[in-house]
């Protein structure tokens, strides 16, 4: 089996906002809440134009098993249902709510009754929680596993992306919620070990969590090297348990559940108070931002309102959801803060410019920095030569798109970008192979029948 250390990169930390206690954004005049804020099916609106809504009231129900309901973060009136271009380039339905500034809490907000694992998972589902580290995977789906299979509960407090400090603030400001959440998980999943992984560039968080977790059986804090991508799921599992998640398997197959610390705090808050996920602590930073800080923002607040609040040095040329390593750039400042938005980074012209690629000099840095030991330069040439069989052998499907290869490339090759395309090429090829095999099998069956 695999042994040794996983590679990574020393990305600049730029954690300028560590000491910024989150301030609450004044209620924006309007919010636009997108329906696709999770991996899987988009939510289905349950309100119509003209409806009055209050804080914590459901405005969209889960659109399937792999989905999560959405609640209003403001009180006001539903203006219309509309469409926007989201950061992945697709059209998305949004519910536009005109706020009344009252922030009246919905009467139905009350703590859920949680008695066993099933009611716990149901509560997580009702809370509207998705993976808040950025992935947006519906948390209830992740937690809907056989408790006997869980040996390690891993809380992700690595926050390895540059700039972002929202998880850091969760650990500092809501340590009790994180611990309460951990205790709930321990109660319903009977794991032997519950470990929170934190990069060692946040010693204050390590200390606070050690303090807060005293007396919780099986709880420990793992101080991890500040080597991006420490917070990658498979990386975190390996560095906290030594287990390697094999290709095509899930963390639960090695007995692990990984949950982001802010996700856990949100669940804990919901179970305590009944207030679902309606607002986010967002780190606002970047070279175009005048006063980098953490802001508490209702989900659906247009980025423009957030940037106006913190102030801009210049016109932003590129604005990101999330960190600079894996964040996605938004097409417009009207795009809203989403459930899984942990940072808004606005960059000036210089930082926004795309680098100009030059020919590969075969220095091997992409290979040397890949946490999963892939060969990005080889993948790039296989993709350019349209060779899905080679891509399969090179295991491009394992790529988590962390971006270490592109980051370290001196020729500025778009390596991780090509990996994404290569994964799509491989998936298409696999689907075609499968279809062909099925067709062949069907034909043979027919022959047998004759």
């Amino acid at each position, binding site marked *: 089996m695999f042994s040794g250390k996983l590679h990574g990169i020393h990305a600049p930390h730029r954690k300028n906002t560590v000491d910024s206690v989150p301030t609450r954004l004044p209620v924006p005049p309007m919010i636009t809440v997108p329906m696709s804020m999770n991996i899987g099916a988009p939510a289905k609106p349950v309100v119509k134009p003209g409806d009055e809504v209050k804080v914590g009231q459901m405005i969209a129900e889960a659109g399937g098993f792999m989905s999560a309901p959405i609640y209003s973060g403001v009180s006001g009136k539903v203006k219309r249902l509309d469409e926007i271009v989201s950061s992945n380039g697709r059209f998305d339905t949004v519910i536009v709510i005109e706020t009344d500034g009252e922030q009246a809490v919905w009467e139905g907000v009350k703590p859920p009754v949680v008695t066993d694992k099933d009611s716990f998972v149901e509560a997580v589902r009702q809370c509207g929680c998705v993976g808040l580290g950025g992935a947006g995977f519906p948390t209830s789906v992740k937690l809907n596993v056989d408790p006997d299979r869980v040996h390690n509960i891993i809380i992700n407090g690595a926050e390895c992306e540059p700039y972002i400090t929202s998880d850091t603030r969760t650990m500092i400001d809501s340590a009790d919620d994180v611990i309460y959440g951990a205790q709930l998980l321990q109660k319903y999943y009977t794991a032997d070990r519950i470990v929170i992984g934190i990069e060692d560039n946040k010693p204050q968080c390590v200390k606070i969590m050690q303090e807060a977790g005293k007396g919780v059986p099986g709880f420990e804090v793992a101080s991890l090297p500040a080597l991006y991508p420490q917070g990658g799921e498979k990386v975190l599992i390996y560095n906290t348990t030594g287990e390697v998640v*094999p*290709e095509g398997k899930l963390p639960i197959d090695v007995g692990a559940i990984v949950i982001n610390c802010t996700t856990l705090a949100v669940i804990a808050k919901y179970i305590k108070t009944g207030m679902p996920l309606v607002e986010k602590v967002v780190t606002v930073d970047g070279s175009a931002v005048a006063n980098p800080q953490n802001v508490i923002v209702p989900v659906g607040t247009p980025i423009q309102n957030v940037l106006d609040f913190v102030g801009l040095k210049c016109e932003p040329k590129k604005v990101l959801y999330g960190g*600079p390593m894996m964040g996605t750039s938004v097409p417009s400042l009207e795009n809203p803060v989403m459930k899984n938005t942990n940072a808004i980074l606005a960059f000036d012209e210089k930082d926004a410019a795309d680098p100009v690629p030059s020919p590969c000099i075969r220095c091997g840095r992409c290979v040397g920095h890949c946490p999963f030991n892939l060969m990005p330069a080889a993948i790039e040439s296989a993709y350019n030569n349209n060779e899905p069989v080679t891509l399969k052998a090179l295991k491009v499907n394992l790529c988590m798109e962390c971006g270490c290869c592109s980051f370290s490339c001196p020729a500025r090759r778009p390596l*991780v970008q090509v990996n994404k395309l290569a994964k799509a090429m491989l998936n298409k090829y696999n689907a075609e192979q499968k279809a062909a095999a099925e067709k062949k099998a069907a034909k043979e069956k027919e022959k047998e029948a004759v």
Partner: protein
Amino acid sequence: MNNMIVSVNPHVYAKDTTQTIMRDVLIALFPAVIASIIFFGVQALLVEVVCVAVAVACEWAFEKICKKPVTIMDLSAAVTGLLLALNLPVEIPLWQAAFGAFVAVVVVKQFFGGIGQNFANPAITARVIMLVAFAGTMTTWKVPAFTDVTSAATPLAVIAGSEGTLPTLLQMFLGARGGSMGETSCLALLIGGVYLICRRVISWHTPVAFIGTVLVLTALLGQQPLYQVMAGGLFIGAIFMATDYTTSPPTPAGKLIFGVGCGLITVLIRVWGNFPEGVSFSILLMNILNPYICDWTKTKPFGGVQA
């Protein structure tokens, strides 16, 4: 309003670029340039200037003629020119030096597709071609300054049986001996090597494996190992030529195999071959094996399951 840049992650990059890497190599070669001027006079500087100028000019002209983007600013042509110059005897006619730079950049590098595409190291290949084409001038050595050695024969030639006396080990280390103008000063080359390793431009694997193999094998064969290691082009070859990114493997295991292979072939040629020196040939031969070494030393993906 909608004039924002939308692009795929990542949105930050490391500071190193091809240009900064090549600049670091030039900086690392600077001590060797100084040493060449100290031991072989201003003529050494002249040869170096000619080689660099011709290499850069050839790259520019070739890319202009072929309507390709001009890449002289990545400094790789300058590195090739300087490396070639340092591998030539100081009294080489300038037109021959210029011809060598032309061969390196145009024939070995650009004909195969430019930077990153050549299968063999341009400077090494050009030197080997010159060795064949200009056998006389390429093996005529000048007596270096600061030495009481009367014969200009290289130490390797002396070991192989030519007339002459061996310089002292200290002279060998500092560079007061016969040989190509940039290869004699082990001290200068070592400083450059340490600089490159500290700047993470190269890793220690290839040079240590290469020099180590020569040391161990010549010791086993009773061939004056310390002289063998410091003589000829071993230091410049192991530190600057065998570590060329394009023509050597990317993984540590591959680099070790590459270095050991270079060392082995060097010793075979020096001890049993017709030539007193074999560093150039060994690197060239290992360049040819490079694709196979890369294939043998592929990385194992984390969590990958073999189908």
